[in-house]
């Protein structure tokens, strides 16, 4: 057996002139930006550490999660990081509006001295403090920019600064005895009792993040059927969370996740271990870093161990992904690298392979084609895969390194209106897109992929919308010599002969007719009829389903083996502001021997 590290340079170089021509065309093409009703937001800018931290104690503190309200009653004591200490009978804060109020028998201690009053309200976003002192008579004082020595006496105040929220249509989520509030970022409670259907469960501490930046919410856990998260503690830059989870493989188990985030954009690190209470453990680390204004680096590492608690593992593997992105004005260059070690312990049982791959991709933004309604996008890629133990055996050669070149383009025709433009509910919309990519490999084969879709849609009324779409995905894996040979895999011991004509080219055609009825903002129903006409034809159990991602979606969008006829009905109801019930029932028709095969999905998300 011969081992080739690289070959078929001729295949790659043959297309180099074509690459150059396309590149020149793209560079010379008019770079009109695609008209965007709302421009895509730019890179995040650095954010200051929260200017105000509030430390609150009271006989009883209540938190209303659906409205982000913190209400406190009895012996309220509030210390602020800008030097105020306030006591009073009651406290109210709207975390989203970033303002608080202390009322009744208020005592204010500040740089301006000690004062008694009826109420004090602080609008943190505006640096305005409104105070009703009671010296001999009530008065109205306004402090500007935290200057407690020079109150503006008698100045008119906004009409609602001392309003309490109406709590009659909301229910308490948890109660506590103390809280630390980082304005616009987080709240951390102590002495917590959480309420589930009016039943109190003691939790000790609980942390809620409501930052406008998602960095602290990046997660590193894989999917589960059920996940209840207890954010035990945290601050403006970290969260420690315990997860109670369930999935079909591990059943019930615990996981732990530690989030860290910097104050700059795209600065975060997330570490997790899950499941923690089973033999199979996954230790994940996700990081992100923004370097300069146009460069980002993201990493993902996953260490697998088979061990009981923290005893010596019997198996261990590690995979690492690194993604580096350099942004330009109208395009981006991205490098992706992966290294996997399947056997860190050197045991003879596990595979000794440690493959790696890398890909460099340049992608343009969507550009308008000469003032036409068409938009196009191009991309080029160059990469490799390597495994010293061999990636592919072909033509008597075991390839340990396979190089590839990718050229692709996308053309889209968005939102062409047909009909009377004065009647919104009589208009038809046509949307179409074609995406094509070709990959040349140093193993002498190329992969073509063309994905075309067109849809016709109409909004019939405020409540009803329908669309008809047709999608064709052609994938062909073509070898210069030979390729896929005819075979008839066994199904229940019987050869499945329709598969014999498969020679490496698959065609997946999908037609969808869908109607959505939005009865209200809290209730949406839809019915979806899908027909797959695929080659190779699907058969139940013949094709394995692709792996799923964190929320159970298939990682390959179009895959072989989908049932030819599907009818799906879905009802989605929002039971509470943070709780949605999704009931979905799908029927498969004429799928192999299955005439009528219902599949039922109930999903609760919050």
């Amino acid at each position: 057996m011969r081992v080739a590290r690289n070959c078929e340079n001729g295949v790659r170089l043959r297309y180099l002139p074509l690459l150059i021509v396309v590149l020149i065309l793209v560079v010379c093409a008019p770079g009109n930006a695609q008209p965007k009703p709302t421009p895509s937001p730019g890179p995040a800018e650095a954010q200051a550490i929260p200017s105000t931290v509030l430390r609150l104690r009271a006989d009883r503190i209540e938190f209303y999660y659906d409205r982000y309200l913190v209400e406190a009653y009895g012996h309220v004591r509030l210390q602020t990081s800008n030097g105020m200490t306030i006591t009073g009978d009651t406290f109210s804060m709207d975390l989203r509006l970033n303002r608080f109020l202390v009322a009744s028998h208020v005592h204010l201690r500040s740089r301006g001295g000690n004062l008694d009053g009826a109420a004090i309200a602080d609008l943190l976003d505006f640096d305005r403090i409104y105070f009703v002192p009671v010296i001999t008579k009530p008065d109205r004082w306004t402090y500007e920019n935290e200057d407690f020595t020079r109150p503006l006496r008698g100045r008119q105040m906004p009409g609602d600064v001392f309003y309490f929220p109406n709590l009659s249509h909301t229910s308490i989520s948890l109660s506590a005895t103390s809280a630390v509030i980082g304005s616009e970022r987080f709240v951390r409670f102590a002495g917590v009792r959480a309420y589930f259907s009016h039943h109190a469960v003691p939790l000790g501490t609980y942390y809620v993040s409501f930052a406008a930046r998602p960095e602290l919410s990046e997660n590193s856990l894989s999917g589960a059927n059920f996940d209840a998260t207890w954010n035990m503690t945290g601050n403006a830059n970290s969260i420690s969370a315990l997860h109670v989870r369930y999935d079909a493989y591990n059943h019930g188990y615990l996981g732990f996740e530690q989030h860290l985030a910097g104050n700059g954009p795209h600065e975060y690190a997330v570490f997790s271990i899950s499941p923690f209470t089973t033999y199979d453990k996954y230790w994940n680390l996700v990081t992100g870093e923004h370097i300069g204004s146009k460069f980002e680096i993201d990493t993902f590492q996953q260490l697998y161990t088979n061990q009981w608690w923290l005893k010596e593992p019997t198996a261990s593997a590690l995979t690492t992904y690194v993604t580096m992105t350099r942004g330009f004005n109208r395009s981006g260059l991205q490098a992706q690298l992966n290294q996997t070690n399947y056997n860190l312990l050197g045991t003879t049982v596990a595979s000794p392979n440690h493959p790696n791959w890398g890909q460099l991709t340049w992608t343009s933004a969507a550009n308008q084609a000469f003032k036409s309604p068409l938009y196009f996008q191009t991309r080029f890629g160059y990469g490799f895969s390597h495994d010293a133990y061999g990636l592919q055996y072909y033509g008597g050669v075991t390839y340990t390194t396979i190089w590839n070149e990718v050229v692709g383009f996308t053309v889209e025709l968005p939102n062409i209106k047909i009909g009377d433009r004065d009647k919104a509910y009589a208009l038809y919309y046509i949307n179409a897109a074609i995406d094509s990519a070709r990959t040349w490999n140093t193993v002498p084969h190329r992969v073509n992929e063309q994905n075309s879709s067109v849809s016709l849609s109409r909004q019939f009324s405020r409540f009803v919308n329908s669309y008809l779409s047709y999608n064709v995905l052609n994938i062909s894996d073509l070898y210069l010599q030979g390729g896929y040979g005819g075979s008839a895999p066994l199904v229940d011991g019987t050869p499945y002969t329709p598969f014999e004509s498969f020679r490496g080219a698959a065609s997946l055609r999908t037609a969808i007719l869908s109607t959505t009825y939005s009865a209200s903002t809290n209730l949406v129903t839809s019915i979806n009829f899908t027909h797959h006409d695929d080659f190779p034809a699907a058969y139940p159990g013949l094709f394995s389903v692709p792996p799923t991602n964190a929320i159970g979606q298939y990682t390959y969008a179009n895959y072989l083996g989908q049932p030819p006829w599907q009818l799906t009905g879905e009802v989605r109801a929002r039971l509470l502001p943070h709780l949605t019930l999704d009931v979905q029932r799908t029927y498969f028709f004429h799928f192999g021997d299955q005439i009528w095969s219902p599949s039922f999905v109930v999903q609760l998300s919050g």
Partner: protein
Amino acid sequence: MTKLRTRLGAVFCALILLAAAAPVTIEGQLLAYQDGFVFFTTGDGFRVAPNIVILDAQTQQRAKRPPEARDYARAVFNDSGQVVELDLSTEPYPVEPLPDAAQAFAVTASSPYPNPELAGPPRTTSNGVAETFSGKLVLVKFQVQVPPTTPITAQVYIATDVSGWNPNAIEMDRIDALHFVAIRRMASGTVLHYLYTRGSLQTEEVAANGLSVRPRELIVNDSDTNSTNSVVAAWKDANANNILMQPSVFPTPYNPAPFPNLPTGTKTPHP
């Protein structure tokens, strides 16, 4: 006829006298009850008469506890502007600005003067609607155009700061090959930060040049319907040959073929 005129005149005079004698009252929510004053959430404080009567508004019996902040109450004034009766209610009263008649009774040590920050007409939106934020619930429509490489079977969600950036917090409905829609009811004045995702933060939207984006911002105003019409330039997990790289799937042995789920028993490519 004369008698009728006389009677009507008498009734009219009686009505005027009754109206003149009707005490001034206000309703609202209490901010504080202390130091001989009662304060409403308008921020106004009123002097309390020494012989004030505190009643339960529902039973009209003496209240069993003193007034507290957050109580709803109706205050009855005497001619000198002191509160002589306070009716505490468990039913919410509308919280509104004070009537002029009661405004004169509010006690302040300093003379009020206008606040220049509160002057001026409200700003208007691009379609000429006054950009006011009353807190009323209004419809908010999110419509997004996704990249053409988005799988036809994909689901699109909105992650928001209100939901702790849960990446599948708001599920959107596909309305054609390239567009998704979600409609929510939100209070005007809500400042919402959000991102479009395909269900996880590994599949969130990125800028056209591949860099991460700062969250979009929506300030909900008092218009009956607020609409956002956005374009997702690219997804974070997109790559050149459309094979979606998912780091959460492990282990992922390298497979050079584009058919990851061919049935077992299929012959591998050969010359």
